[in-house]
């Protein structure tokens, strides 16, 4: 490895502009004649639109247009779709209701957009939006997923009887029931996975330009996957054909999944720019709009049963989950509680029989979709809370119960699709137990007791699946897209390198890690490498960044393209040096012939490729190669987290005293960035477990629509994490990478909840473990 190659802690190249305030986000872009959009949003969770009176708004200063849903659909703009088809267990396709970017007949959640004002200034647009008078017939609302399935519940969409979108299953039910029936011990657990607001630091924003002369659109937007956005905007929403629409996702300040999806606002800004006859329309979300309209995460209610034989080996696992998908089906909402969830229910364990039934339900709430971890945190929460509960009920050490059931031979086929390719779960468990001084816990608990505090310890041995793939497999499971990645390596005549990638960085540090691959391969400094991403005019196509896929899939595509560049460069060098191609070595910026003193500078070979003066017979000039990489399998990061807490029984306040993370991410390119990802993930996971909760009242009003009521984790709430990694290489990709972006958020909630339920000796406590809930749990 060179100083900046694979494994080096290279400082983040992008941080110079971010830390100095020089990042250029969507809202920083301005064009001449740009106007502003303000949305008229429903204050009701469920209502019929009887009429819209725009007259007052239209006559207000600066107002260019007031537009509604009937005009939008009248212009042929299509409904928003969910891109993953799930079939119910009876074989019927999922029951997807219509979602128009501006509501036409009904509004179905508070914040649902019913009209838009286009005006010369943002304040004029907002003032006029308040003056749009919508006559609503308020309808009964339902926010609870179980109640929504009940008799007499308000019905959201005519397509979905009893609000059920699908009733899906995985695994074999009869053998699982039989295994449970024959068990020496059955452990039951009812748990909820709390609904979350995603809260990226940068709110969503869209700037839509329309060039009338060329009939061409450009959309700057806060997207994690601009190519998918263009595809969907073109193919499904009929905004413009792909060759007439350029989508640019410039600097994006965090996403956590919420910026994967195509939202009504981007569609409306594009359509309204042309319809209102203005050069450009910009919309930037306010924070409360973000709480109301950014796709929420999680919101599962689960009943689980696990059987054990007399030797404490798991015999079977049965899980029933109801998942709340909100008022409409967001882009990948259907896949989250199915193939991203139930396929991970085997955890790190040998379980011969698993059956899971999932019902997804419409309610009068914000649409729910993938949020950091997407299905895998929910699965890990079920499995790891169950293992801890079982250990308590069986009276065995939680670490030893896990160890006794670990998968130890690979590949391992689970009963729920996944084939684990590599791992060493005991190694992570041992590392975490050592780092946390697991053996010394009893003394620490006794010390806490002497201070009037309740101390608890809990662990979580998580496994997750990253780099969702291969395309053919996900296609057979209902995905509407492929899940490969593309890369193009452009070597310039002077030897500097541009990497064009279909991945998109919105905080992950791609501009650093991706350049390290080039430095590692050719020995050029990372400062001589530029990463190009986020622009459909520059990068031909790509699938974007989510699901921890940019390492295992995105970087593998780069590696494939680098292979091609290296092969051609060696041919050119061999010709120039009159040597055998097999003897050419490229390192430290030099191209040498092994065993001789013959050499060329890397830049000389690159220049040679472009002058074309001395190339092998028949070779095309230039040094530029592209690759598409489609993985053969998911990757399976895994690890063990151990959390220790102290509770103040008088107030219910919980201190996280210690948090240990021992992860196996396979090959690591930049350990500093990986550590940062783990830190952020753990903070988010503890946020879910002890603080964050999107709460609706019975009428469907979001009670947590600002930071006055929605608690985010702050640095002072958390201890310094003790993190470490071990390495089993993923056999499925060239570098052996697994992915690290979500593990922290996946593994930490059950570790925390296992610790706090241990501290207070009450296993019914639900996330988030707020002081009030903890106090109530202690005081019965």
């Amino acid at each position, binding site marked *: 490895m060179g100083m900046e190659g694979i494994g080096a802690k290279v400082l983040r190249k992008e941080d110079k502009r971010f830390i100095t305030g020089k990042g250029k986000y969507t809202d920083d872009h301005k064009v001449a004649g740009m106007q502003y959009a303000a949305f008229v949003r429903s204050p009701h969770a469920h209502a019929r639109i009887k009429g819209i009176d725009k007259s007052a708004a239209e006559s207000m200063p600066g107002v260019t247009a007031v537009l509604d849903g009937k005009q939008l659909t009248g212009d042929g703009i299509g409904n928003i779709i969910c891109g993953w088809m799930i079939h119910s267990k009876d074989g019927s396709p999922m029951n997807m209701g219509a979602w128009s970017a501006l509501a036409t007949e009904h509004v179905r959640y508070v914040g649902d957009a019913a009209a838009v004002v286009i005006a010369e200034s943002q304040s004029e647009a*907002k003032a006029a939006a308040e003056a749009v008078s919508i006559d609503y017939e308020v309808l009964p609302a339902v926010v609870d997923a179980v109640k929504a399935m009940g008799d007499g519940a308000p019905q959201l969409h005519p397509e979905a009887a009893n609000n059920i979108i699908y009733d899906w299953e995985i695994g074999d039910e009869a053998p699982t029931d039989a295994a449970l029936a024959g068990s020496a011990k059955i452990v039951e657990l009812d748990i909820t996975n709390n609904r979350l607001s995603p809260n990226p630091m940068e709110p969503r924003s869209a700037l839509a330009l329309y060039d009338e002369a060329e009939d061409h659109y450009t959309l700057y937007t806060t997207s994690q996957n601009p190519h998918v956005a263009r595809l969907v905007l073109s193919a499904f929403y009929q905004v413009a054909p792909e060759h007439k629409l350029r989508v640019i996702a410039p600097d994006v300040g965090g996403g956590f999944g919420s910026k994967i999806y195509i939202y009504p606002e981007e569609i409306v800004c594009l359509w309204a720019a042309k319809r209102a006859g203005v050069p450009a329309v910009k919309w930037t979300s306010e924070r409360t709009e973000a709480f109301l309209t950014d796709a929420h995460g999680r919101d599962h209610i689960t009943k689980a049963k696990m059987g054990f034989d007399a030797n404490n080996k798991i015999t079977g696992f049965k899980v029933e989950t109801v998942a709340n998908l909100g008022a409409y089906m967001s882009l990948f909402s259907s896949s989250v509680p199915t193939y991203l969830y139930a396929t991970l229910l085997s955890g790190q364990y040998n379980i011969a029989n698993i059956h899971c039934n999932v019902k997804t339900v419409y309610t009068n709430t914000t649409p729910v979709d993938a949020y950091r971890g997407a299905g895998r945190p929910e699965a890990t929460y079920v499995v790891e809370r169950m293992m801890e509960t079982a250990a308590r009920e069986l009276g065995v050490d939680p670490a030893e119960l896990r160890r006794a059931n670990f998968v130890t031979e690979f590949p391992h086929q689970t009963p729920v699709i996944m084939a684990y390719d590599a791992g060493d779960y005991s190694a992570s468990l041992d590392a975490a137990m050592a780092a946390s001084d697991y053996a010394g816990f009893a003394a620490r608990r006794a010390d806490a007791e002497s201070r009037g505090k309740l101390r608890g310890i809990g662990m979580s041995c998580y496994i997750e699946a990253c780099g969702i793939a291969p395309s053919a497999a996900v296609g057979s499971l209902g995905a509407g897209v492929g899940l490969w990645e593309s890369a193009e390596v452009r070597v310039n005549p002077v030897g500097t390198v541009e990497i064009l990638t279909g991945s998109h960085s919105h905080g992950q540090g791609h501009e650093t890690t991706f350049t390290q691959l080039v430095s590692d391969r050719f020995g050029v400094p990372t400062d001589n490498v530029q990463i190009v991403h986020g622009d459909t005019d520059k990068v031909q196509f790509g699938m974007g960044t989510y699901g921890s896929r940019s390492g295992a899939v995105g970087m593998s595509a780069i590696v494939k393209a680098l292979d091609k560049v290296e092969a051609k460069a060696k041919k050119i060098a061999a010709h120039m040096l009159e040597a055998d191609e097999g003897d050419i070595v490229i390192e430290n910026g030099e191209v040498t012939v092994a065993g001789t003193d013959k050499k060329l500078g890397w830049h000389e070979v690159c220049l040679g490729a472009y002058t074309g003066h001395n190339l092998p017979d028949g070779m095309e000039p230039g040094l530029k190669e592209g690759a598409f990489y489609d993985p053969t399998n998911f990757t399976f990061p895994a690890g063990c987290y151990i959390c220790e807490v102290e509770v103040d029984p*008088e107030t219910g306040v919980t201190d996280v005293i210690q948090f240990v993370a021992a992860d196996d991410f396979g090959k690591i390119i930049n350990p500093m960035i990986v550590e940062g990802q783990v830190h952020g993930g753990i903070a988010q996971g503890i946020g879910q477990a002890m603080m964050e909760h999107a709460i609706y009242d019975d009428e469907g009003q979001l009670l947590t629509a600002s930071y*006055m009521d929605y*608690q985010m984790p702050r640095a002072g709430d958390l201890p310094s994490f003790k993190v470490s990694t071990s390495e089993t290489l993923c056999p499925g990709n060239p570098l052996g990478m697994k992915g690290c972006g979500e593990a922290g958020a996946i593994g930490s909630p059950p570790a925390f909840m296992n610790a706090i339920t241990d501290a207070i000796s009450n296993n019914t406590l639900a996330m988030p473990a707020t002081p009030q809930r903890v106090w109530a749990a202690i*005081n019965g």
Partner: protein
Amino acid sequence: MTSAKYHRASSVDEAASLAGSASDPKYIAGGQTLIPTIKQRLAEPSDLIDLRHIGATKGISVSGSQVTIGATTTHAEVASSAELRAVCAALCDLASQIGDPAVRHMGTLGGSIANNDPAADYPAAMLALDAQITTNQRTISASDYFVGLFETALNDGEVITEVSFNAPDKAAYEKFPNPASRYAMAGVFVAKSGGGVRVGVTGAGSDGAFRHEGMEQALSGNWSADAVADVAVDTASMLSDIHGDAAYRANLVKVMAKRAVAAAG
């Protein structure tokens, strides 16, 4: 954002006169609540009359045990006043827990008690210190001043000029912050002086800040944390919301009171 006419008053009289001639005026004394309210389009005053630049209402003076704090003294100034700390450190500690550094350098004592947010910190101290609130029209005792949620005894156009009190022998403030907003969910200020014991409670009451007379009586007879432990806190008068129901808030009032007495020594 809507537009309002901004006035920078240089005297209390000028401020009152400006208020008298505007259609829908608001005094602004730091704006840490008012500006966000306007930005959310929940208030649209015609005129904003800034009181923060009136020299006469700024500063802290201590004469013996008599403390006077000008209404436009910032929380940061209260928190860092050595003079005040020498006689009533509890009030410095309270001010140091308000909001964050930016809020503390803009927000003022007068602004806080004029707004009378039920979760603000100062009202508990004003009640427990038996403070006198002086305006451009009169002096009001704290017990008469705080009327209810966001309600005070102030008349339209009346300007708070200063707050004064006798420093107690012992005092402390203990706050349980709302986990999300960090406003007080229960903040208890206890003060013991020759005149007796007073206990001011903020954040928890459904009718705003209040004195807890049961605790005052118990502590008058026995100044110890144990004395508070047996006093009932009526859940019927407690706020209840997603962060804490009435039973939890009642518990917090008691726990914060115990800790405040212990901290006061």
